Every structure is written in structure tokens, then in C-alpha cells.
């Protein structure tokens, strides 16, 4: 599983780094930065899914 992040869609809502701080951080303007995008363990997959499910801009997806 890996995280696909569409930087063009991200508007800095900040949901991902609030819900999954292990996987995402914020840049100085509040836009998302992906910290870990591949080789996710099951717990990280759950966290990534939660982040993706709460992104208002559909900027995050999970792929095999």
C-alpha cells in the first residue's frame, strides 16, 4: 500500500496531519507534506485511510 498525494488539489485543510501525524506534516503555509508514503504497516494503512476519508478536496488516495 502506498499513499498518492495530489499536491495540486491540497488546499491546506489540515485534516490529514491532524488525524495521522505519523504520516503527514504541514509546511509553513499549512499545506500537507507526506512523511511516509510507501511500505506502510497495517496500522499506518488504517491511519492513511482515515486521513484520505476526511480530506475535503479528495487530494489523498491509497494504492496497492
Amino acid at each position, binding site marked *: 500500500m502506498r499513499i498518492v498525494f495530489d499536491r495540486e488539489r491540497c*488546499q*491546506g*485543510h*489540515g*485534516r490529514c*496531519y*491532524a*488525524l495521522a501525524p505519523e504520516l503527514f506534516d*504541514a*509546511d*509553513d*503555509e*499549512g499545506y500537507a507534506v507526506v512523511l511516509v508514503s510507501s511500505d506502510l504497516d497495517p496500522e499506518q494503512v488504517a491511519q492513511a485511510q*482515515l486521513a484520505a*476519508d*476526511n*480530506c*475535503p*478536496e*479528495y487530494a489523498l488516495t491509497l494504492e496497492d
Partner: protein
Amino acid sequence: MTDLHETTRDWATTFDHTDEDYAQHAPEIWDDLRQRCPVAHGDAHGGVWFPSRHEDVSAIANDTERFTSEGVIVSIFKPENLAPMGYAPPITSDPPFHKDARRILLPAFSPKAVDKLEEATRASCRQLLDDLLADGATTADAAVQYTQHIPVRAIAHMLGVPPEDGDRFRVFIHRILEKPGTYNAHLAPEDTLVYYIQKALEDRRTRPPQDDLIGYLLSYRDDAGNPLPDEQIFGNIGLLIIAGIDTTWSAIGASLWHLAQHPEDRRRLVAEPEIMPFAVEELLRYYAPVTMARIAKEDMVIGDTEIKARDWVLLPFPAANRDPEAFEDADEFVIDRQRNRHLAFGLGIHRCAGSNLARMELRVALEEWLARIPEFELADPEGVRWATGQVRGPRELPVRILATNPPKEP
């Protein structure tokens, strides 16, 4: 709900968001419109369209080609030829100007910057609660004595103006947002927001730079070494005062209104503080305070409704947040909702720049309230007054205090 049309009006054809009936019954009106007339219209304020479906709201929010943001508060005075900056950049700005105007402000509202404001916000909540509970009070107005003060103090602190100026901010905001276009004729010039900002800037320009947002804007230089235009600084400050206060105050107030009536939710928040982040988002979804507006730039069709160039179009994020097409069990409040792509802060390039600050204030205000007043209920359900206009929240919220805790040791 069933009596809605008989008792008030046909909201599909005589829509008016500044009507008292709308303020009191908005969620039922949205549900009704979504089912039978997804894009409502009213002649008030020079004519306004009201799309109630998530799909349309989302499409308009993302359509900066066919809609301008030079007008975001519906009023009979329709801004014209103000784009691309508008009167309160960047919320009133259009691309491409918008991007840099927003980028200048964003660092001040980043998660790290907002973290630094949390302690002061918490201290001000505790002080307000101490005052509210003084002399063993058993009733209080949670809006008047608590929620309305929290964002005012946070914004005054951020801007670097005296905290007591906050009382004036509330007056400015009331005129602009709740009764747009009705006060302009009889105001003394020195009693206006424009005058207030001009004075604040004049004062600051004569003193050494300070480490606050006004100081930052005054000392900002672009890559070529140019300062920001005066009208941009002025507009930014106006925006923070107008957009950062009664919005958050409404969200906190609506959240307390909910918790006053749902003992199971407030008890769960006390027992399981780890669900607070989900609760904050669900409160924001369910009680989203802010409806934005746009002005159409050309003739177009939304759904099967024809809209003309220069028409006002409201962007009701609160209505979109209750659309069953977009949210599972949209009408149910689920305190730990796990999938919640709500639009309380808008969508697209105009996503609320202060969303991190608003969330922090909402969370801290609820944490501190529940720590001191874990049990409370509405003292007078009929006495709750919801604001009219584009920012929805209780302006009067009488509660009965059922149980209190002593203040925590600092």
C-alpha cells in the same frame, strides 16, 4: 417542518437569509429546498440565488472562472470593478492576484503559529469561566458571557491591538454581517471599521515594529523589496476582524447549544477526551456557521436554473454539509464520525485561511467549558436567538448550570 410553508413563506421563490424565520429554521428549509427546488431564489438584496445541494455548492466554490469573489457578503450594494483584489483580500480576491495575497497571510495561521496562541486562548477561557461562575451563579448566557469573547480576544492578540477594542469589533461585525446595507446612512465616520483600521495603522506607523500581524504586514517586502499596497494591508486587517470573530463565536455557541441538549454527547466527551478531534469536526459539519457568496461573471445554468451575469449566488456550506447525497446519515449527529469531508471552511482556493485557528479556539473553548461545567442544559430553549445573515450561530444562549468543578491548578 410540515407547517413551514403555511407559517412563513415559500422559500423556493422568496428566499431571504436575513429573515428571522430563516435564522430559526434554516436546517428544515435546506432539507425542503434540496428535495423540491435545489436552487432557490429571492428578490431581497437585489436578487439572490441559493443552491442547497452539495454538488452545486462544491462546483461553484471551485469555479473561479465563472464566479468572482469581489462580493462575498450579499447586500443591496453590490461590489463592482473591485476584482482582482477586492475590499478584503484574499477572501475577496480572484486569481491570479489571489494566490500571492493568500500566501502572505498563510504562515500566520499555520499549525505551528496557531499552537503558540493556544495558551493565551486557554487562559482567556478560564478567566471567562471564573467570571461566569463567580458568586455561585446557576444560570448564565453562554453566548454573551463566554463564546462571543473568545475569538475577539484571540484576534486582538494576533493583530496586536488592545483587548478592549474587541467590544467595538462586535459592533462593526453586526452591522456588516447581520444587517448588511442597513446602517450606512446614519453612522458617524469615526464610528466605523474603516476609521478604526486607519487609526490603528497610523498609530503603528509612528512606532517601532512589533511582533504581531499588523507589524508583519507593515514590514512585509516582496522579492523586489516593495511593501504591500496600503489598500491590501487595510483589507487584510478588515478581513481578520470581519471573518475571524463571529464565525468562530457561532461555532462555539452552536456546539454548546448542542451539548446542552445532548447529555450523552457531553458525557462521552468528558469520559473519552480522545474523541474530541472527531467531535470538533462533526460539530463543524453539523453546525457550520458560514455561508459565503459569489457574483456570477456570465450567464449560465446551474442544475436547470438560469443565472444571469452579475447575479448574487450564496454558497451555503452549512446546507451542503447536511446533504444526504454527500454524507452518510447526514441528518444524524455522530460525535465520532470517521468519514467527514465537511465543507465548513469552504472548498478550493478560498478555503478559510483561519481554519487552524478556528479549530483550536473551538476545541479549547469546549475543553475548558466541560472541565468547569460538565453538566448544563438550556435554561430557556425559546430564548435562544440565532443570528440572521450569512453567519449562523446563537447570539443569546441562556443555560442552567447543573454541576461544576473547581478550577484546575495552573
